[in-house]
């Protein structure tokens, strides 16, 4: 079974030879950004929405993901007549810096002094932050000649990018929709990421991060990381509803009477999640991006005051949380809402009733769809577009 991610896949990309000065002090050049667009940019270039993807998402927002052949991760939300209506808006989705779907990341050829252009960065890829990701996205937005984004929308790590967009480029963001996210990564969030990373480090196929040299992939470690993380994206209620305590015979087990001869359906589901993930994701990218999330804290430059980054902001915010999300709970969303209140910002804040956990923002939640559609339509009226 071929477990390597095909690196030669052609993504739509722009290369910025001048690169980017990262927050860690390293100058990364060139920087390549892979992206997809949907809809048409208006003549006034005032109808653009940037959608930011989550940890393991990618730029294939509303069309077929080329590796899995599955529909884009938000194809139920983005499209003609859908809540993010591509008949009205021009939607841009970019693979994050550090990612593995065409944007510059640990699997990209190493650049700089002494590099021959064949060896990948691997774990030598410089540590990037959420702000670095956003600054890289701005390069492409500038390239489109867009001076002000109508909206920036994203869930989970995508929501962190939304907040960073609004804090770093306040005049460029008319409306911001951070969904199922937090103004900083909590100790619990960091703890879960650390377990994921340790699973990758513990895989003998990881080879200190230089697995490409051995034609290996730390598939088991990455799969365990994904399995563990996936639990945090669901809720006890959702797991009970989907799987309960139902058991099936292990198709790979020889003896049904042995200790693991039978397996619970939830185990089978998680194994499937883990094994399918390794086909589309790079382990070093996973390490790079989870670390960027861990470093995220909007208050860090302001003595922990989360309102300071937003003082004087004119952006219209809509914060959304989900009642059963225990990874980015409503209490953190409320903390963000209050920080924005302190900055006298224009804030909507909705908690959507759902039993689907953190992943609810990707799933069928009619109240959430109505919220997205309504917030964007209301903001468009204020922005006097379309």
């Amino acid at each position, binding site marked *: 079974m071929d477990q390597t991610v095909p690196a030669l896949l052609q993504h739509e990309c722009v290369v910025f030879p001048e690169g980017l000065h990262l927050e860690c002090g390293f100058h990364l050049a060139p920087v390549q950004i892979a992206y997809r667009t949907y809809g048409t940019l208006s003549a006034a270039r005032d109808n653009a929405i940037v959608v930011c993807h989550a940890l393991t998402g990618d730029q294939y927002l509303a069309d077929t993901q080329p590796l899995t052949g599955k529909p884009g991760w938000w194809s139920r939300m983005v499209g003609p007549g859908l809540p993010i209506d591509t008949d009205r808006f021009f939607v841009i989705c970019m693979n994050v810096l550090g990612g593995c779907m065409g944007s510059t990341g640990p699997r990209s050829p190493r650049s700089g002094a002494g590099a021959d252009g064949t060896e990948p960065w691997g774990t030598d890829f410089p540590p990037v932050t959420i702000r670095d990701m956003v600054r890289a996205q701005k390069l492409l937005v500038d390239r489109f000649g867009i001076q002000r984004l109508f909206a920036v929308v994203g869930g989970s790590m995508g929501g962190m990018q939304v907040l960073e967009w609004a804090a770093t480029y306040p005049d460029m963001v008319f409306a911001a929709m951070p969904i199922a996210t937090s103004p900083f990564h909590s100790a619990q969030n960091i703890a879960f990421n650390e377990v994921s990373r340790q699973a990758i480090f513990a895989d003998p196929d990881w080879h200190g991060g230089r697995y490409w040299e051995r034609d290996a992939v730390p598939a088991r470690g990455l799969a365990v990381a994904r399995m563990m993380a996936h639990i945090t994206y669901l809720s006890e209620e959702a797991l009970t509803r989907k799987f309960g305590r139902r058991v099936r015979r292990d198709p790979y087990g020889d003896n049904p009477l042995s200790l693991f001869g039978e397996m619970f359906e939830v185990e089978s589901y998680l194994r499937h999640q883990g094994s399918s993930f390794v086909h589309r994701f790079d382990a070093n990218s996973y390490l790079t991006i989870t670390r960027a999330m861990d470093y995220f804290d909007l208050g860090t430059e302001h003595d922990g005051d989360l309102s300071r980054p937003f003082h004087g902001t004119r952006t*219209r915010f*809509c*914060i959304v949380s989900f009642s059963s999300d225990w990874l980015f709970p409503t209490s953190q969303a*409320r903390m963000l*809402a*209050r920080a924005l*209140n*302190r*900055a*006298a910002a*224009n*804030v*909507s*804040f*909705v*908690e*959507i*009733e759902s039993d689907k956990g953190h992943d609810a923002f990707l799933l069928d939640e009619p*109240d959430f769809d*109505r*919220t997205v*559609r*309504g*917030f964007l*339509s*209301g*903001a468009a*009226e204020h922005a006097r577009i379309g």
Partner: protein
Amino acid sequence: MRLDQRLIAEMIQPGTRVLDIGSGDGALLDYLFRTRGCDAQGIEIDMQEVTRSVAHGLPVMHGDADHDLAHYPRHAFDYVVLQRTLQAVERPREVLRQMLRIGRHAIVSFPNFGHWQLRLKLLTTGRMPMTAVWNTPWYETPNIHPCTILDFLMLCREEGYVVEEWMAVDEDGERAPWRRSIRLANLFGEQALFLLRRRGG
């Protein structure tokens, strides 16, 4: 929109910043934005109403008068509106203080417990009065701090608030004719409506 909301809207200057506490279905917010060009935001305790309002494009956040006003900076708004809710908050005096800290003006409406029907019912039956306005039994009413128009005026005097405008209205929001006399208003007005500011503020 209810008539008393229309009376509130008439008190608000066009193009101002407004916070509506207990914005409900968002009717006042929508009216203020569309007809008066106000930057109007809402706070609402009922999540279904919040979702419905945001789905209609109105800026509303989930929260309540007792816990969420303290987070706004001083004079963040030109007007802070509290409709028919003062009697249901935990600490009415503190809520008023917060309203006049974060807003230059406060607009407060509340049901008047001094209305003659209530006085008569308590006198004749000896039991907690029930009327069209006060329509839940004492053991489950959310109205834990009822007051009369006179009580409210006394509180404004103690706290140093200037009453810029006031009126008594009936339940449907029709203006009562006894607008000039506070004593008569306190007897015949079902709802009271006040526009306040802080002295010197």
